[in-house]
């Protein structure tokens, strides 16, 4: 066994050494250029980065939402688009009408998979062929650097607006000249996860009707493990014997929805590949659900503990009440950030490891380097994917158990003669 590992190390080292020394085999053929950035069309990539490989841009493009599924090279799966601009009303269709950025429809252009809009009224409506898209980094009035894109049309360059977001400029977005209500990759994957959940859990429910009093069968046996675990380890101890049944469906729905979205995000091709739970808007909505459920079910004791904590001196209450009120909002906020950051970080690590192939391979110029990158990156990617499988289940579980513990704190009835640590 020892010898095997040694041999393996020497082989890997030799491979890496020959690979790096091998730039004489430099290839500039079109094929390598095509393959280097799975998600970009080579057209945009070359214009923007002068043919070089920009790992950060590629990673950010892959974790972002998109209006079409990119399969490979020029193969895309179009998705329906629904766009609204106050001046010109609704524009609907399939994202294939943009021809991956080569055609503008009513001023809308596909930029790196996302729909952008030319707000300039002098830009022609209807379908027109447009040139390449330029990327510039501009500094805004408050000193922040912002990516701005320009589209070329008949030797003029027009500024592109990104879709509106409701973050109030906090995440670099804000209300722009149009709204994007399309079924994007993320929306599609969420709908698919919801449909899968409905289909699977109806089958399981039918199983419980059919096998009443008998052993479970089929898919029911697989999911019963999860149900029993969620009931006995999560809702019962966290919410308490008295109330747990009321909240069981909510906690289970959170768990399974997040789990399915996480797992689908790990599939690198068509039905998956969307970074749903790594999108802060999705996790925000999930956290808001928890916030609403917790606070609508807050008992008298819960609100008393927030506004006027019993059993402590008056002057401490004055300090503690603002902290508790802040805590009401910090708890769902941390749920949102935790899920978003964990899943995004996992995707970024995997994409960075894959990016090693293009970095070592000098963007297609060095085949040996690319091979070494493929060996190193590939092994680490396989390892990271296994860790991500764990993280997918763990984060769904953590979201569910924390939601359950917040609900438990809200519905709990205290006995005030007891000393309690809140």
């Amino acid at each position, binding site marked *: 066994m020892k010898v095997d590992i040694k041999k393996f190390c020497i082989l890997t080292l030799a491979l890496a050494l020959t690979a790096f020394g091998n730039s004489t085999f430099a290839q500039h053929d079109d094929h390598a250029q095509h393959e280097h950035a799975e998600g970009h069309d080579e057209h945009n990539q070359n214009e923007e980065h002068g043919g070089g490989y920009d790992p950060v841009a590629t990673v950010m493009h892959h974790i972002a939402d998109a209006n079409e599924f990119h399969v490979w090279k020029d193969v895309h799966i179009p998705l329906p688009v629904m766009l609204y601009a106050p001046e010109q009303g609704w524009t609907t269709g399939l994202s294939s009408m943009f021809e991956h950025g080569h055609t503008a429809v009513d001023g809308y252009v596909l930029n790196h998979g996302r729909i952008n809009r030319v707000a300039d009224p002098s830009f022609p409506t209807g379908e027109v062929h447009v040139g390449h898209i330029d990327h510039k980094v501009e500094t805004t009035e408050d000193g922040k650097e912002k990516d701005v894109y320009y589209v070329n049309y008949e030797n003029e360059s027009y500024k592109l607006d990104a879709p509106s977001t409701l973050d109030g400029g906090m*995440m670099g977005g804000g209300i722009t000249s149009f709204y994007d209500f399309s079924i994007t990759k993320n929306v599609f994957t969420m709908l698919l996860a919801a449909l899968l959940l409905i289909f699977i859990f109806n089958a399981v429910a039918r199983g419980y009707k059919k096998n009443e009093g008998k052993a479970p069968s089929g898919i029911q046996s697989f999911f019963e493990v999860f149900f029993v675990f969620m009931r006995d*380890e*999560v809702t019962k*101890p966290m919410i308490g014997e008295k109330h747990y049944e009321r909240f069981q469906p909510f906690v289970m729905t959170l768990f399974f929805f997040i789990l399915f979205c996480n797992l689908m995000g790990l599939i690198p091709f068509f039905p998956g590949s969307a970074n749903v739970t790594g999108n802060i808007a999705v996790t925000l909505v999930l956290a808001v659900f928890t916030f609403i459920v917790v606070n609508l079910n807050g008992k008298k004791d819960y609100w008393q503990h927030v506004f006027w904590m019993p059993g402590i001196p008056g002057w401490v209450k004055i300090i503690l009440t603002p902290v508790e009120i802040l805590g009401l909002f910090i708890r769902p906020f*941390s749920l949102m*950030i*935790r899920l*978003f*950051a*964990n899943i995004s970080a996992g995707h970024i690590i995997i994409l960075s490891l894959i990016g090693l192939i293009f970095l070592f391979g000098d963007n297609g110029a060095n085949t040996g380097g690319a091979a070494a990158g493929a060996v190193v990156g590939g092994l680490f990617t396989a390892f990271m994917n296994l860790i991500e499988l764990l993280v997918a289940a*763990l984060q769904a*579980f*953590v979201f569910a*158990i*924390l939601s359950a*513990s917040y609900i438990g704190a809200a519905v709990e009835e205290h006995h005030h003669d007891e000393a309690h640590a809140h």
Partner: protein
Amino acid sequence: MGPIGAGLAALGAGIGIGLIGSKAMEAIARQPEAAGDIRSNMILVAALVEGAALFAIVVGLLG
């Protein structure tokens, strides 16, 4: 400065979660029959520590 802060936050969370893990292992070694309870509490507390670190990382990388 942002990336340095993010790295420091990861360092702090690493120490914190390491301590949780080590204490949980000790506890399981002392009382193997309570392993299930200890494990789920360990994950819960680790998630809370991690939440604080992720705040710092997100703020560090955005700001």
